[in-house]
């Protein structure tokens, strides 16, 4: 047995924008044991939603669980409440939600791709990705009125309509964005440096993915065909050309390529959404109080997001439970590190696109 060295990684780390902490035990370069601590930013949001806020306000509170997938959280919550109260949401509102949710996915995936390039030491590509991401941020601002905290969805519909001018601008900018994304795809797919750095590193085998219940792009990169957009009917994804994307390999490269392909698929869907936008109301009035329990699954950019809502005809909910995608992926991360070289750790962590403010809530 060689000398064991303890290396703390995080909670503040140059390669990691999130407050997660791993404590690695290494023998020379090889990791032999790891401990995780994810609770640095626990804010007690579940508790606050069950005591302080009325059920109509909770949608705005859960949006603040995470900035990157704000729309998914609100969407999960309102879908659950609408199911509890049997509210029929107008078709147009569903399409507008779909628009916001796919814009959100594009921006989140571009962020993940950019970060991944950065930890591979490829600053140049990182800058390119983030420059193009700015386009989709502007579009989000145009549609919802804010860059990240959208506050777009409420119980019963959405808050803003799409004006013809906005729609025109959306189409123009989406065209540009699509071209840029195609160019990025080419780079991410064929660049020699990237292949050298990412191929065969951090491999999740299909068996591992099944055993550890991996979710989201990491699962799909390991041939596990699970996508909530396919398995839970919360928005009309199938009408706008949704494709299930899986890859072989399960390494960092495959995870990144899943994100690239999904970004392109989302962009295609966005055009179809604009083409097929139905007429009608964007909101229905809400009456009554939630009673009973409901659970929904939502495909957030990082994977399956689970909401459990229980109410008993009161303004304040009895229980709200949020199970976020990164939380579900922590076990596989931990498993993956054992036996890995320490130098590969940052890239592997980022390839899961971890979101710790979600995880700790």
């Amino acid at each position: 047995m060689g000398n064991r060295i303890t290396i703390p990684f995080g909670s503040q780390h140059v390669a990691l924008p999130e407050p997660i902490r791993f404590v690695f035990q290494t023998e020379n370069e090889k990791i032999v044991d790891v401990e995780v601590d994810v609770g640095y930013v626990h804010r007690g949001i579940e508790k606050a939603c069950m005591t302080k806020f009325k059920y109509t306000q909770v949608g705005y509170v859960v949006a603040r669980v995470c900035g990157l997938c704000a729309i998914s959280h609100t969407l999960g919550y309102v879908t659950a409440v609408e199911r509890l109260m049997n509210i029929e949401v107008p078709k147009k509102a569903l399409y507008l939600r779909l628009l916001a949710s796919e814009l959100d996915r594009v921006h989140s995936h571009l962020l993940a791709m950019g970060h991944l390039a950065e930890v591979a030491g490829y600053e140049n590509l990182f800058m390119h990705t983030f420059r193009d991401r700015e386009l989709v941020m502007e579009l989000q601002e145009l549609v919802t009125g804010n860059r990240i905290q959208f506050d777009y969805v409420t119980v019963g519909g959405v808050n803003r309509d799409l004006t013809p001018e906005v729609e025109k601008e959306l189409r123009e900018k989406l065209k540009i964005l699509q071209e840029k994304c195609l160019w990025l795809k080419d780079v991410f797919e064929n660049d020699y440096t990237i292949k050298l750095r990412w191929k065969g590193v951090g491999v999740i085998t299909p068996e591992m993915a099944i055993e550890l219940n991996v979710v989201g792009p990491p699962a799909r990169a390991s041939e596990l065909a699970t996508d909530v957009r396919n398995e839970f009917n919360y928005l009309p994804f199938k009408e706008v050309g949704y494709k299930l994307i899986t890859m072989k390999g399960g390494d960092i490269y495959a995870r990144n390529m899943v994100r690239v392909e999904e970004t392109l698929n989302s962009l295609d869907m966005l055009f179809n959404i604009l083409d097929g936008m139905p007429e009608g109301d964007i909101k229905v009035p809400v009456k009554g109080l939630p009673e009973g329990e409901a659970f929904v699954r939502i495909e957030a950019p990082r994977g399956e997001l689970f909401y459990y809502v229980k109410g008993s005809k009161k303004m304040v909910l009895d229980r709200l439970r949020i199970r976020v995608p990164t939380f579900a992926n922590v076990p596989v991360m931990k498993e993956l590190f054992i036996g890995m070289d320490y130098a590969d750790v940052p890239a592997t962590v980022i390839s899961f696109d971890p979101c710790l403010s979600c995880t700790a809530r």
Partner: protein
Amino acid sequence: MKVEEVKVSLRDVRRAIKDFYDPEEWHFITVNGTDVGGRIELKWFFTKYGEEEAFKVFTAEANYDDEIPTLTYIIPSAWISEWELADLLGLNVEGAKKGLFLDPDSPKAPLRRG
């Protein structure tokens, strides 16, 4: 939505889930605890791969000081949800360490009522 809800007693949870769980077919989502006033209602959620809105839910009730059986022998990734139960509801889960979310000086079992 197709939901199959199975009520079991706390002692039989592990056997019931072991008999049913096929990792190729079912996806374990999470275990959730709700305080129903003096008791905790526990729910284990599963969903089927590739099928639309098919769920299976196991429900059991526990007292505050009961020992909750762990599922990590059957589902290795369940540890993190179980640790959360131990932390936020202050339950005694087999093999769970406290302190995933909470610090030693934070309030104990914040999700309990009252």
